[in-house]
């Protein structure tokens, strides 16, 4: 789960990390009021879950009321990489001499947390990581002990942070690690951490992404969720509780288990089709869930044909077959051709239950995918 910048900054500030004075605003008038209260110059920043907001026009600096009104007009209500902007953060612009990067995340390869510092913050840190990885100091942390103060200092010195602020930066990094750990974050990031002429440090941006699997022990963070979906179908999938990703093709795909569904997408592509979505109904799905899955895929206007691929382990073929029959019997005419392939637990029972006047049945994954691709081509031609 991703927090908005203003939410993350609130948490960082409460923990003692310096942040600029700021106000959240949802209308042009509120933005202008905020500017007057904060004093110019101010930055107006779209609060959406999009990387590279600045480049996309989601961040503007204003030096007076007129500029601020213009910036607020432009950003509020804009469509930023598919996300609707309905609120902005107005904050005092920081006059800086240096921009640093601080981050804490999980190092999958090592299976332990890693703290990172770079003196080349403020730009796309991922391109720094790719082109000059030596510009990012990395310090692995033993999760049993947490980060020792010396580790924060070591990372800061190795990153070549200006000496006059090294203590202040190390202190921010320690706090950032503690937040990462205590909030069950997957990522905690400050980019940039601005260094001012006077030798102060200020977190000009803030990222705090929380591990979805740990939200059960952070009800306060779960309440802060303001996920803005780009897509009505992804919203619907959220309501149904499906793992769903919408893609651009016309072959709808439903299956059980992330790996098998991914493999089914790949096979559609391999046989010359174009996958419309990833939809995993999960393990042990009952008939109703199957019905909901078909509703999802039928609701996508891009879908011309559907392949339903189930390999039952804890999922039972007879339950799936019942769900498919229920879903399809509601229609006078099946909206889109459906190819079904059932294997594994209770597959033969499922095959007997399936109403073959409503669906096409194939025995192997390869045959099912090829038939669904052919169906899609037929609709297109």
């Amino acid at each position, binding site marked *: 789960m991703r927090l908005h910048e203003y939410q993350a900054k609130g948490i960082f500030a409460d923990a003692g990390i310096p942040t600029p004075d700021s106000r959240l605003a949802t209308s042009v008038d509120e933005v202008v009021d905020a500017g007057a209260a904060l004093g110019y110059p101010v930055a107006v920043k779209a609060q959406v879950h999009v990387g590279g907001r600045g480049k996309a026009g989601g961040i503007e600096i204003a030096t007076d009321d007129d500029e601020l009104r213009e910036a607020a007009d432009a950003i509020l209500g804009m469509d930023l990489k598919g996300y609707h902007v309905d609120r902005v953060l107005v904050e005092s612009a920081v006059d800086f001499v240096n921009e640093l990067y601080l981050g804490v995340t999980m190092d*999958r390869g090592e299976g332990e947390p890693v703290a990172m510092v770079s003196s080349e913050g403020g730009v796309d840190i991922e391109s720094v990581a790719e082109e000059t990885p030596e510009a990012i100091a990395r310090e692995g942390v033993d999760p049993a002990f947490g980060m020792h103060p010396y580790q924060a200092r070591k990372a800061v010195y190795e990153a070549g942070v200006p000496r006059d602020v090294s203590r202040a930066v190390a202190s921010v990094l320690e706090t950032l690690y503690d937040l990462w750990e205590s909030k069950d974050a997957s990522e905690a990031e400050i980019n940039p951490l601005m260094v001012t002429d006077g030798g102060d440090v200020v977190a000009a941006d803030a990222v705090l992404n929380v591990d979805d699997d740990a939200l059960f022990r952070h009800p306060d963070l779960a309440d802060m969720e303001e996920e803005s979906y780009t897509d009505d179908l992804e919203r619907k999938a959220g309501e149904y509780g499906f793992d769903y990703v919408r893609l651009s093709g016309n072959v709808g795909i439903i299956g059980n288990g992330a790996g098998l569904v991914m493999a089914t997408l790949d096979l559609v592509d391999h046989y010359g089709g174009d996958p419309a979505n990833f939809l995993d109904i999960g393990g042990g799905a009952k008939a109703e869930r199957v019905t909901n899955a078909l509703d999802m895929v039928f609701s996508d206007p891009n879908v011309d044909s559907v392949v339903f691929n189930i390999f039952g382990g804890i999922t039972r073929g007879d339950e799936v077959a019942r769900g498919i029959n229920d879903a399809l019997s509601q229609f006078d005419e099946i909206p889109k051709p459906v190819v079904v392939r059932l294997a594994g637990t209770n597959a033969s029972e499922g095959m007997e239950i399936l109403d073959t006047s409503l669906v096409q049945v194939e025995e192997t994954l390869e045959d099912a995918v090829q038939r669904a691709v052919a169906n899609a081509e037929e609709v297109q031609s």
Partner: protein
Amino acid sequence: MSVLVDADTRVVVQGITGGEGKFHAEQMIEYGTNVVAGAVPGKGGQEVAGVPVYDTVHEAVRQEDADASVVFVPPAFAADALFEALDTSLDLVVAITEGIPTQDMATVNRRLSETDTHLVGPNCPGVITPGEAKLGILPGNIFASGNVGLVSRSGTLTYQVVDNLTNRGIGQTTAIGIGGDPIIGTSFIDALELFEADPETEAVAMCGEIGGEDEEEAAEYIATQMDTPVAAFIAGRTAPPGKRMGHAGAIVSGSGTGTAESKINALNDAGVPVGDTPEEVADHIEGYL
């Protein structure tokens, strides 16, 4: 021969009184697995699926000589259950539980590094040695005893590939589902090492997916230290960057790491053919035998 589990493995089921734990304990027993006990705090003295339940894993080990555990404990309590299992010096712990917080697994992983125990999972279908024992939720009927080792990050994709093998008469020594989480106990390399050391395993099928760099590291191991031939499948060629494809671990990051292309290239460079379909993987495996 086999790896990790066989007919003599003595299994304790952690969480045996829960719905899933009970159901799969029964399924494991029906398959022939030597399930000797259950362990659930506060439920000691009961009998479930025909085996005695103890309050602690320690007691199950003391009373019934268990040497492996299967964990069906819910995510909020799973890390504690894993610490408990690791503290009893079992040979093998198989964690089926899905949705364990990643930071919990980092501390479990840290503890694991100090023990000689093999941890498989979490968020995995388990381990099966066909005809002998299964520890987990894999459907036993699709497997057959034979000479191919199988290691996979995904449950149902494992079943698919096994089905392709079994249907043409190719059986398996052992199949290991290592799980789809970002932090797991047994990695591809760990599993490949076990198969390499097993004289009965003549070939290995490996099913990877997008995310992380475990497959790339496995490719390096195969190229430099493995004689047993390997064929692979990599799921997620069509996955867009930045979108989590179901598994917490299956995500291509913005900086281009963890892509299917990088994994396929690394495996091909290591001399490992990567099938475009599960059927092609079976073709390659058949060619090795």
